[in-house]
Structures are given as structure tokens and as C-alpha cells.
């Protein structure tokens, strides 16, 4: 009897604390949404309203059309999709080699690769900038894409190697006896069997490329090829008070990652818990 009431009480406390936390987490997002729906003249109203009184989509229309956030959205989408596909391709091949093939220096190479997970990424920005300059890929989408692939390589290869090692060897051995090449085995057998692993890689790489700021900030000065994070940051620094449009663009840029995240969140949580890679 006593135990039951105390259990109920602790249950109530749990929900209470979770909800308080939820409000703290969600309030800034809600305020951003409300601000994006306010007319410009209400942006600095006092007291600030948490519930919108007058709703308008003007900020969205202006941001997308006049301020070319529609274009930046497409740029971001292009860069994120290319980076994601290429990362899946490159890191799954690497992971397969480390999981199944024999070659000299295998362990050494793997450790070198893991080193890539430990280097602070911003430390590499200066020499990457110089190299990208020499390769003439600054101000081009490809300059963003190759660096995004590389920065994701270590983590995703590590993740996929673990995944491939979980696939029973017998499946491949049968195919090898039948004379299939490793290349064929990889694409026809291993790759299709690894959909959950590929899903995790997809989400991580997409999120990373969609949100990435420091590299795009230095490597993309071409106005028409900006991605959303740099476009939003630069817009705010040039139009200090037009918060409605800043947040309209922000909300629009949030839509794809929220959709991707909700759709794949089970894989995602699994991926973080097994590898500890930051989203």
C-alpha cells in the first residue's frame, strides 16, 4: 500500500521534471516560430509576446524570394545530398576492406584513420583552405563536398566496419566458391544487407553537411553558392533588426533535418549509442 503511493509519487515527479525540462528546451524554438510569424513592427514590442496576436507569412515570402533563401536552400540540399551519397560510397568501401580483406599494414592504417576522429576539425581549416586554394576548388560546391566527405570518413567507416563484421562470413564464402569477385560480393550481397547501417551513415552525414558552418564560412565566398548556415549568419549581420526574416529562414532550414531525424530516429539513437558520434 505504502509502496504503491510512493511509486505513484515518484512517477508524478518524473513526469513533472521531464515536462519542466521540455519547456526549457522547447521555449526558444517556440519563440523563434512566433517571431517568424510576427510583422516586422512587432519584433521589438514590449512586453514580448509568446503567443502571436497577428500572424503573417510575409517574413517567409520575403526571405525565400527577395533574400534568395530559396536558392540557398537548394544549394544546401545539393551539397548535403552529394556529400551523403559520396560518404556512403567511400566509407562503405573502406569499411569493407577493413572488415574482410587482407592487406599489409591493415591495423596501422586503421589506427591512422581513427586518429581522424580525434583531431579538432577547426585545426585543419587553415591548411585545408590553402590546399583547396591550390586545387582551385574554393568557391565551388565540390570544395565543400570533398571536405565534408573527409571529415565524416573516420567515424562512418568505424561504424560500418562494425556493422559488416556482424554479417556471417558463410554468405560470402559460398559466393566466393562460385567464383564471384569481391567487388561483386560487396555490391550485390553486403551492401543490400547493411541497410540499417547505411541509414545511420545517411542521417549523420546529412545532418553534418546541412549544419556545417566553419568550413563553408571560409571556403565559400561566392554569393550565389552559399549554403543556409552561412547565408543566415551573414544576413543577420547585415540586417541587424530583421529578426522575423532571420527566423523564417531558420525555420525553413530546420524542416528537412527535423523530418529526417523523426523518420530515422530509432536508427539514429542506435548509431549514437554504439559509436558515440556526435550528431
Amino acid at each position, binding site marked *: 500500500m505504502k509502496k504503491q503511493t510512493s511509486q505513484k509519487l515518484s*512517477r508524478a515527479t518524473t*513526469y513533472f*521534471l521531464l515536462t519542466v*525540462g*521540455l519547456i526549457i*528546451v522547447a521555449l*526558444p*524554438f517556440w*519563440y*523563434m516560430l512566433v517571431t517568424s510569424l510576427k510583422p516586422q513592427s512587432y519584433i*521589438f*514590442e514590449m512586453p*514580448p509576446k*509568446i503567443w502571436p496576436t497577428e500572424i503573417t507569412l510575409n517574413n517567409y515570402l520575403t526571405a525565400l524570394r527577395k533574400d534568395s533563401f530559396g536558392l540557398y536552400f537548394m544549394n544546401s540540399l545539393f551539397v548535403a545530398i552529394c556529400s551523403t551519397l559520396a560518404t556512403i560510397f*567511400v566509407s562503405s*568501401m*573502406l569499411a569493407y*576492406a577493413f572488415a574482410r*580483406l*587482407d*592487406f599489409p599494414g591493415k591495423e596501422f*592504417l586503421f589506427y*591512422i*584513420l581513427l586518429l*581522424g576522429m*580525434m*583531431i*579538432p576539425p*577547426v*585545426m*585543419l*581549416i587553415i*591548411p*585545408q583552405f*590553402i*590546399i583547396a586554394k591550390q586545387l582551385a576548388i574554393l568557391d565551388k560546391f565540390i570544395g565543400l563536398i570533398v*571536405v565534408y566527405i*573527409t571529415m565524416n*570518413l573516420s567515424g562512418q567507416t568505424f561504424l560500418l566496419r562494425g556493422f559488416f563484421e556482424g554479417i556471417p562470413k558463410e554468405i560470402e564464402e559460398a559466393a566466393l566458391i562460385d567464383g564471384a*569477385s*569481391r567487388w561483386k560480393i560487396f555490391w550485390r550481397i553486403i551492401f543490400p544487407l547493411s541497410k540499417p547501417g547505411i541509414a545511420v551513415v545517411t542521417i549523420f552525414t546529412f545532418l553534418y553537411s*546541412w*549544419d556545417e*558552418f*566553419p568550413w563553408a564560412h571560409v571556403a565559400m565566398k561566392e554569393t550565389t553558392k552559399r549554403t543556409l548556415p552561412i547565408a*543566415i*549568419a551573414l544576413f*543577420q*549581420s547585415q540586417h541587424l533588426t530583421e529578426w522575423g526574416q532571420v*527566423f523564417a529562414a531558420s525555420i525553413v532550414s*530546420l524542416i528537412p533535418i*527535423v523530418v529526417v*531525424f523523426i523518420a530515422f*530516429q530509432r536508427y539514429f*539513437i542506435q548509431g*549514437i*549509442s554504439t559509436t*558515440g558520434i*556526435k*550528431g
Partner: protein
Amino acid sequence: MELLLTKFVKILKKSSTALIFLLPGLLLFTVFIIVPMIYSFRISFYDWKIVNPEQSEWIGVENYLRALSDPIFRRAALNTVIYSLVTVPGQMILGLIVAVLLNQNIRGRTFYRIMYYLPVITSWVIVSLLFEYMFSGQAGLVNYFLRDVFHVTSENILWLADPILTFVPIHLLGIWKGIGWTAVIFVAGLQAIPQHLYEAAEVDGAGSKEKFFLITLPLLRPTTVYLLVVLTIGSLNAYISNLLITNGGNPMDLTHFILTLMYEATFTKLDFGYGSAISYLLTMCVFVVSVFQIRMMTKPIEN
């Protein structure tokens, strides 16, 4: 002899298959990670001329000495260390609380999980601007709550104009954004704890407090070490929130982080050698801190 030769050809053949699989990845990795690491080490010893690299002048450890004796760098280092000391424990304590709450059999778990994770997946640019707006001096939401709702202050606080107060939104943002990720890692750690330990403790009459401090916390040690290292490295690398909220060290270069200073030195003042030296100093700190933390946190397990 013939046998040896065929063996050699066999190995080569085997490796050649591997080579095809390895080539694209290793090529990218070499060009954009290995070479940059070595390259930037070299640059840090030069007065590097970005337009005419051939005219760069070897100056030894001058860039490093300059950084270490520069009051702006020292202030930036101090700011970064304080940021670590505040945000790492902040994320870990709150993340653990959220993890313990979420690890129970509650309704709407997926919903809570998604909501707590929302700040993690949102780009730093967006959340930094959002906090800047909420903390703005004149009509900010935070000032409104402090002044008109809770009556803590009678005047607006100018958060963003003060070299100390400006870290309030930066620190809060750092904690707020990281709770979700920390909680997910803690949940994974919690689920790895064998359930029968709790059952045995219950038989022995242990309450939930004893269970938490005698079973949960000690068994979470590997997770805690891992989080401590990763979060500390992350906090030393903090950069975007500071860059956007302080506009690059305002006021009077008092509010830099190490990386915003590195960014300014390199891409605004085009002093690539100095910037590289700063980033190598940071990397060395990161390395020392992680080795130290791993040592410190793994030792007591032996006792």
C-alpha cells in the same frame, strides 16, 4: 623458388583487390587530413605569406611565443577554460538527470526523446542567433522575464555589451544544446547495467538513493569518462556561438575564445602562421587534457 614467387603474386593479387576498396577513402584522407596536419605544423614556424608562400620567412617558435605572451590570447584561453568548466559539468549533470528520467517505463518516451534532441540537431548558427535575440538588451525575452515577471531587476540588463555578462547566453547555450546528446549516451550506459544487480540490492533492502549511488554511478564510470573527454574536447573547440554572439571578441577583444581568435588572426588579418600556431597550441591542450582525464578517471577502478 617458384613457390615463393606464386605466393608473392598471390599476396599482390589479394592486396590489389583491397587497394580498389581503399583508394578513394585513403586518397581523400591523405589530401584533406594527413597533409593538412603536417602542413599546418610547418606553417606555424613561418611568417607565412598567403599570396606568395615562397617569400615566407622562417621565424622558429616566434609565433608560439607571441601567442603565449599576448594578453588577448591569454584572455581567450581563460575564457575557453571557464567555458569548459561551466558547460561540461552542466551538460553531464543535466544529461544524467534526463537520462535517468527517460530510462523509466514512461508514456511518450519517444516524444520526449525527440524534443530533447532537437537542440542537438539544430545548426549552431540558428541557435546562436536565437540566444542573441532572446538576450538582447532592449526588448529581449530574458530581460522581460527578469524584470516584469520575476522582478529580479528593475532595469534592462545589457547582456551582450558587457565582457562578463555576454558569457551568460554563451554558456547557457552550450549546456542547452548538449543535454540531449549527453542524455542519449548516458541512456546507453544505463541500459548496459545488468538488471539483476538492482534486484539483488532490493532484496538487501536498498532504497533508490542507495541503488543510484552504489550501483548506477560506479557502473557508469566508463560512460562518464568517455563523456568527460568528448565534451571537454568539444568545449575547447567551441567557436560558432562566440563568433556570432560577440561578433568576434567584442567588446575590446575581451570575449574571444581560442578559435575565434585563430579565425580572426588567419582569415581577417591573414596571419596564417600565427593562426596555425594558435591552433596547434589548442590541439596540444586537447591532447594533454584527454590523456590526463583518461588516466585520472580509470585509475581508481583498480582499487
